[in-house]
């Protein structure tokens, strides 16, 4: 099911995400206090190249990572055939990437 | 009815996957001409049955540091009390050197090393040099696992859970045509034809109440050989190990070996009154040799000085509980798993039937009197005489198994075609094996009950201490038990993996060979090595030593005596150079 490449991609993406997740959680703990508003979020992120890179990278990594992860789970737990789960995995990857990038642009651009 | 028998062909057929069988398969595969079909058939799973896997102590081989093949040979001859076939013993000692290198370098075993990287060798009892190569105290697992891997990864056909039930001669009476098997998983019969057949089913004296060999062994090979008219030698020579675990009759753990090293390290044997007794029998006390200790324990038992289950105790705690725990980790854990505290408490032990020195008469190339049949390993007689040195068992099976593989590969080059079987023999063996289903006798539990009876009879009458009276009475009981076995009815609903049927077949083999052991014991009117006659306690004249040869030519088992040929060395002499010390062990 997993070969070296997929295995390494999953680990690599996880390693990339590790600091980003720490950052993300930290931001949430700090930001969420007293509730969130759209304006609040946007004022922090909008127009910031750094946040764009931060979340952009996050989205790429998580798309790769979750796609590989779900591929294994589909194969092992849902009995999805090898080929089909590979296809599914690609769909998940593209889907997450598009949705994720849209979200990143939404909060950082405009 | 023979139409119920499936047939298949091969060139070289090997029965058994112990050290002898696996080595034969490997060598045959290496040396046969390309395209030769090689098949290995075994009663259990490949490499997971038989006794080679259970070897603890190790493998005897002379590898220098003062030790020589000559010295190994002399120890083997003296250990066997001048009864071994000297040419076989010599070949064993000489080829062990090659085989151990093969095991390490080609098969991939790893044996324990000294700190400087060289092989570690220790001295088993009865040896005059540090000679025994080992892998901790699980040497057999290392040897068999590695051999099994080699055989599994080569083009060798495996027939697992195939039980050999009969050797089928050629129709024209010229040699062996093939072997009749039961495919145990399906419960059906398969006749395998081959140009050469190695029988390596590993003897194994499991007809005794207490025994060490694995449960699949039931003397099938020797029984088949006997029925095929082949002579068996030294059949009275049953080696007992002094310290088998005694845990009650209902557990299969009973009889399994507690290692020799326990006594060597200073363990005590105590009788039922918790008193040491070994010094009443021998000045070396617990450190005396296997046969002496076994006889002493047996005598205590007969005198009624026993523990709850009727044995004696082994005690280790005086050596320091923690030390024992560390030094004999495997043994302590094994005892603990079934509820005994070896390190701190007392564990009940009893002598237990361990090894059969006797077997089919073969030449030094494993050939038998029947063309096309070869025998190696514990099934073959001759190499050990009246006693086997600890560590010479695996050496024997691996050395001669390898030889058999090479010899068969060479011999079949001159065999043009498969031999046509004697159909009436095929039919006869088929009928014999299925007679269980047409018996008239009783119910569930009968076979197991008869096995218990057989084991009692052999233990009491043909055991550690023997007399003419006891042997004769055992013979009578044996014929009675055999009769009852023939009458048993085994359920015929489903023959697939029908264990009760196989227990019955085991009993058939065991009864046949028990009779041979008993008659051979009667024929030897002296006490040599493992065989002890209370009515003939003398060793007898060494110069005129004889060995027993039993055979059945259709009129019952007859035992003859044949003089030992001292082809290399005569009693009282040695082939060691004059300046060599008697022993190199400190």
């Amino acid at each position: 099911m997993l070969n070296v490449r997929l295995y390494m991609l999953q680990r690599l993406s996880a390693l990339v995400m590790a600091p980003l997740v720490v950052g993300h959680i930290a931001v949430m703990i700090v930001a969420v206090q007293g509730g969130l508003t759209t304006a609040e979020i946007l004022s922090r992120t909008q127009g910031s190249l750094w946040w764009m890179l931060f979340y952009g990278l996050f989205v790429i990594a998580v798309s790769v990572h979750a796609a590989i992860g779900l591929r294994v789970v589909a194969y092992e737990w849902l009995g999805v055939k090898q080929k089909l789960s590979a296809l599914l995995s690609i769909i998940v990857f593209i889907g997450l990437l598009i949705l994720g990038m849209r979200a990143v642009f939404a909060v950082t651009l405009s | 009815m023979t139409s119920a028998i499936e047939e298949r062909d091969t060139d070289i057929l090997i029965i058994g996957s112990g050290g002898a069988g696996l080595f034969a398969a490997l060598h045959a595969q290496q040396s046969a001409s390309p395209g030769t079909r090689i098949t290995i058939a075994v009663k259990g799973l490949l490499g997971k049955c038989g006794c080679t896997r259970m070897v603890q102590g190790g493998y005897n081989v002379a590898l220098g540091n003062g030790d020589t093949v000559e010295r190994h040979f002399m120890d083997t001859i003296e250990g066997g009390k001048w009864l071994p076939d000297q040419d076989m013993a010599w070949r064993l000692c000489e080829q062990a050197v090659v085989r151990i290198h093969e095991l390490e370098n080609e098969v991939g075993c790893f044996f324990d090393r000294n700190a400087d990287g060289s092989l570690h060798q220790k001295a088993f009892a009865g040896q005059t040099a540090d000679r025994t190569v080992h892998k901790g105290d699980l040497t057999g697992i290392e040897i068999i696992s590695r051999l099994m891997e080699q055989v599994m990864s080569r083009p060798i056909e495996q027939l697992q859970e195939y039980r050999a039930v009969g050797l089928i001669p050629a129709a024209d009476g010229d040699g062996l045509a093939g072997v009749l098997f039961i495919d145990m998983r399906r419960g059906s019969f398969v006749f395998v034809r081959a140009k050469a057949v190695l029988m390596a089913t590993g003897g194994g004296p499991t007809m005794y109440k207490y025994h060490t060999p694995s449960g699949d062994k039931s003397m099938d090979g020797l029984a088949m050989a006997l029925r095929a008219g082949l002579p068996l030698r030294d059949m009275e020579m049953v080696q007992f190990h002094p310290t088998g675990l005694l845990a009650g009759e209902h557990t299969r753990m009973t009889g399994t070996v507690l290692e020799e090293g326990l006594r060597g390290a200073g363990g005590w044997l105590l009788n039922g009154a918790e008193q040491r007794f070994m010094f009443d029998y021998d000045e070396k006390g617990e450190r005396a040799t296997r046969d002496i200790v076994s006889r002493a324990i047996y005598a205590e038992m007969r005198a009624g000085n026993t523990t709850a289950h009727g044995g004696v105790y082994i005690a280790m705690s005086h050596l320091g509980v923690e030390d024992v725990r560390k030094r004999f980790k495997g043994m302590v854990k094994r005892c603990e798993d079934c509820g005994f505290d070896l390190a701190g408490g007392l564990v009940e032990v009893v002598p237990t039937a361990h090894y059969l020195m006797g077997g089919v008469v073969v030449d030094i190339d494993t050939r038998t009197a029947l063309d096309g049949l070869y025998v190696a390993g514990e099934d073959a007689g001759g190499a050990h005489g009246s006693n086997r040195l600890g560590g010479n068992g695996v050496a024997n099976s691996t050395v001669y198994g390898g030889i058999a593989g090479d010899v068969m590969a060479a011999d079949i080059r001159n065999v043009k075609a498969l031999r046509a079987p004697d159909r009436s023999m095929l039919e006869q063996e088929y009928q014999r094996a299925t007679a269980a289903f047409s018996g008239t006798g009783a119910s569930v539990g009968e076979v197991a009950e008869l096995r218990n009876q057989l084991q009692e009879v052999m233990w009491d009458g043909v055991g550690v201490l023997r007399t003419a009276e006891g042997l004769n009475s055992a013979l009578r009981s044996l014929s009675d038990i055999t009769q009852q076995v023939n009458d048993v009815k085994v359920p015929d609903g489903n023959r697939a993996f029908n264990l009760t049927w196989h227990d019955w077949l085991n009993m058939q083999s065991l009864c046949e060979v028990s009779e041979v052991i008993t008659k051979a014991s009667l024929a030897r009117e002296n006490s040599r090595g493992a065989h002890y006659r209370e009515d003939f306690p003398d060793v007898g004249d060494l110069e005129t030593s004889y060995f027993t040869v039993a055979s059945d030519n259709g009129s019952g088992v007859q035992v003859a005596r044949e003089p030992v040929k001292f082809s290399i060395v005569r009693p009282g002499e040695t082939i060691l150079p004059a300046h060599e010390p008697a022993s190199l062990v400190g």
Partner: protein
Amino acid sequence: MTDSNTETLNVSVWRGDASGGQFRDYQVPVQENQTVLDVVTWIQQKIDDTLSYRFACRVGMCGSCAMTVNGEPRWTCRTHVNRVTQSSSLEIGPLRNLPVIKDLTTDMDPFFDKWTKAGGTHRASRSRNDGMVPVDPASKERMIASEGIECINCAVCYAACDTVAANPQYLGPASLQRAWTLVNDEKHDDRSAVLRAVAAEGGCYNCHSHGSCTRYCPVELNPMKAVAGLKRTTVAKLWGK
């Protein structure tokens, strides 16, 4: 606690074959020093002579007797009944993850086929005519190889592993552990071939470190550690090249 002769065990034994089956109940008298194998033997010898099971050595060396006992994979010849009974009842079935032949016996061929597939066969770098290689028993490599060498190929770990259950290609803990000993065996002629075998489809990357293999190995080996070693070594090789 024991009125040994009168007390009985309620034993459920799986009966059937490849086409299916169900549990059947038996009453077996409690005895001291009774192993699970002894219970099964008692049933076959005294109650129901059609029961099939497998054993050979009866002392934990051959790995033929493993079964599922009260939901856990175990060697039965060395499992004392006291250790596993729950309110004097026992449930005994065939080992998981292997095809059933009949009752308590399974076909172990898939297990051994994977053993070979994982590269678990020594390849000779010298012949019987060469001397023996001196090997320092305390060298790092040898110590690692020795850790996993006493495997009795009982398939208990294979049955315990849920990844084996879920992923038919997965080579499983025992074969990978054997491969790991060979990767650390300096006598092996082509160790990178072993690494290639374990990195291929079905290989070591499929292990999710459940640790059930290590938890249940009756001889206390650590296949999980061996598989981690394979992952580490194969990945390092990827960078190294």
